[in-house]
């Protein structure tokens, strides 16, 4: 077994999967207890691959408390890695994810498992640098993270962390959209950035497509859910393509072309299409709305006013994510989980 003992980070957002889309769409709830179960399955798989130490994000949302209890009551043969909670102030908000990822990177983790929706992964992506992420879905409109069994994700992460698979083939580079306000980069998106005529951030989610004026995507899959489905159903763009897409939108009653798109779970919306064009890296896309809100990966995040200059820029230098299928293929091919006994 490889002797590489760099720890693995685990960031689980206690708040994901509980927003207004339970009310305005038909999104499923994702309780804290299930997130904790996912972490225990991760720990079991990480242990099996030789990971001995895990750094976890502390929270006051119930995950830390449940995880401590699970660790204290684990079976005698479970042999989970030692779990340490990162020492940091807790704000019960997005800053916690950012701070935890920064501290984990500084501590030299080999990989970070992120449990959350697109929004949580957006935060992790902005702080992870070159540390690869295992992106696991526990949110609502999940395009960036995969809906995957945590046990398998744990095996793949452990094999990467312990250096037993070809790291360059085991991870893939993602694209990002960087938002600049008055020339300063303020935030980024890993899937989509939408310009909305909402005036306030409010409850964050978007479910009124008639208020959208522009949509930018890093990639767009035709079977995606969420705002990127609008692009995916018009002009799919792969995660690896060296371009993104901009869609100009209109209220459906004013548009010559309309599209029915699944913008949230169970929510099919009619969207007016005014134009579609490719966007290239480093070409800033100016936003022409006087005021409004920028939604990043499906959540309203930035309120902007008429006097502010807003631009969005595609980057090909986003975070690395672990390619579970590729890792498991290597594991099978090279017999990484096989032991032979005389």
């Amino acid at each position, binding site marked *: 077994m490889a002797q590489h003992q760099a720890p693995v980070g685990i960031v689980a957002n206690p708040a994901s999967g509980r*927003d207004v889309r339970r009310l305005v769409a038909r999104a499923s*709830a994702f309780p804290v207890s299930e997130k904790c179960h996912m972490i225990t399955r991760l720990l079991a798989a990480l242990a099996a691959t030789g990971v001995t130490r895990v750094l976890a994000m502390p929270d006051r949302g119930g995950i830390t408390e449940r995880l401590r209890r699970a660790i204290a009551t684990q079976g005698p043969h479970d042999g989970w890695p030692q779990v340490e909670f990162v020492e940091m102030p807790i704000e019960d908000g997005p800053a916690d994810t950012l701070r935890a990822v920064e501290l984990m990177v500084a501590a030299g983790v080999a990989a970070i498992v992120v449990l959350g929706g697109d929004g949580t992964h957006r935060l992790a992506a902005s702080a992870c640098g070159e540390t690869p992420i295992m992106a696991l879905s526990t949110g609502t409109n999940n395009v960036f993270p995969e809906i995957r069994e945590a046990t398998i994700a744990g095996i793949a992460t452990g094999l990467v962390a312990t250096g037993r698979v070809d790291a360059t083939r085991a991870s893939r580079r993602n694209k990002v959209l960087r938002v600049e306000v008055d020339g300063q980069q303020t935030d980024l998106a890993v899937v989509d950035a939408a310009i909305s005529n909402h*005036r306030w*951030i409010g409850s964050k989610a978007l479910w009124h497509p008639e208020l959208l004026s522009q949509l930018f995507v890093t990639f767009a899959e035709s079977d995606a859910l969420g705002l990127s489905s609008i692009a995916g159903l018009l002009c799919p763009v792969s995660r690896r393509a060296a371009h993104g897409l901009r869609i100009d939108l209109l209220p459906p009653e004013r548009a010559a072309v309309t599209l029915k798109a699944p913008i949230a779970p169970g929510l099919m919306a009619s969207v007016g299409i005014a134009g579609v064009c490719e966007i290239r890296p480093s070409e800033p896309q100016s936003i022409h709305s006087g005021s409004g809100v920028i939604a990043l990966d499906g959540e309203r995040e930035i309120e902007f006013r*008429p006097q502010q200059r807003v631009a969005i820029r595609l980057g090909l230098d986003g975070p690395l994510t672990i390619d579970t299928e590729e890792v498991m293929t290597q594991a099978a091919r090279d017999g990484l989980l096989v032991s032979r006994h005389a």
Partner: protein
Amino acid sequence: MQLSRADLLKAYRTMKMIREFEERLHIEFAAGEVPGFVHLYAGEEAVATGVCMHLDDRDKITSTHRGHGHCLAKGCDVDGMMAEIFGKTNGLCAGKGGSMHIADLSKGMLGANGIVGGGPPLACGAALAAKKLGTGGVAVSFVGDGGANQGTTLESLNLAAIWSLPCIFVIENNGYAESTSCKYAGACHDFADRASGFNMPGVTVDGHDFFAVHEVTGEAVRRARMGNGPTLIECKVNRYYGHFEGDAQTYRARDEVKTIRETRDCIANFEKKATSSGMLAASELQETSREVLAQIDDAVAKAKAAARPGAADLLTHVYVSY
């Protein structure tokens, strides 16, 4: 729903009125002017305001023992409320209810409640009446995190779901049931998670953010009015004072409230957003604040000058007709 300037001014006036009402009671209670107990709502203003802005005269609310904010947001008279809390005959309940039993049925405010978890069954009744009478009204039950663990609340969630009642359960999770942390007392950390067990939508919202509360509640009220049944909304929020006035709050961290006041205050955040958006001018907010303070001063003066109920009032108002 896009908020107009008038909406924003109304919201600000309501939040500010609740805040100043409670801050003044904090002082008056310490001076020994207020009989009985008071449980102050300061810090939670965005919840009552964001919810009640969607309600009209058809709609009913039930409250908790921390009910002043709910009363004011539902339109109860400031003078009548102050007098009631001072225990005077010109109070909303002729001075016999006080803080914990204050009610104004004419405003659809069915009462603060001394019984933890006492409100939800009443809201179910009000919602059932609205449904049977076809008024188009809804009922909102404000519940604390302590009340949310009571059987009455859980039974009410079930009843509201099976009868598809136009009822909205607003759980104001301020972190402490009296002095017991909800982290200790709740097997389920987020009350919104319980909603799926009752086959209704459950949403968590930042109770410090008027805009978020207003938006989410608007959808819940719309759903209820359309006949699509109940919703559970959990507002994560903080109270600025103890469970009751005089509570030493030894169960809270030393700087807990100070930090929240400095970083998450719902009124300060509202002021910042409303002015930076260009929707309201700072001078308008200042003028509103002055008017509110003057109104509170006036209400306190009237309450102090009024008479207390006498022996002859003992057997009146024992029953209420409706």
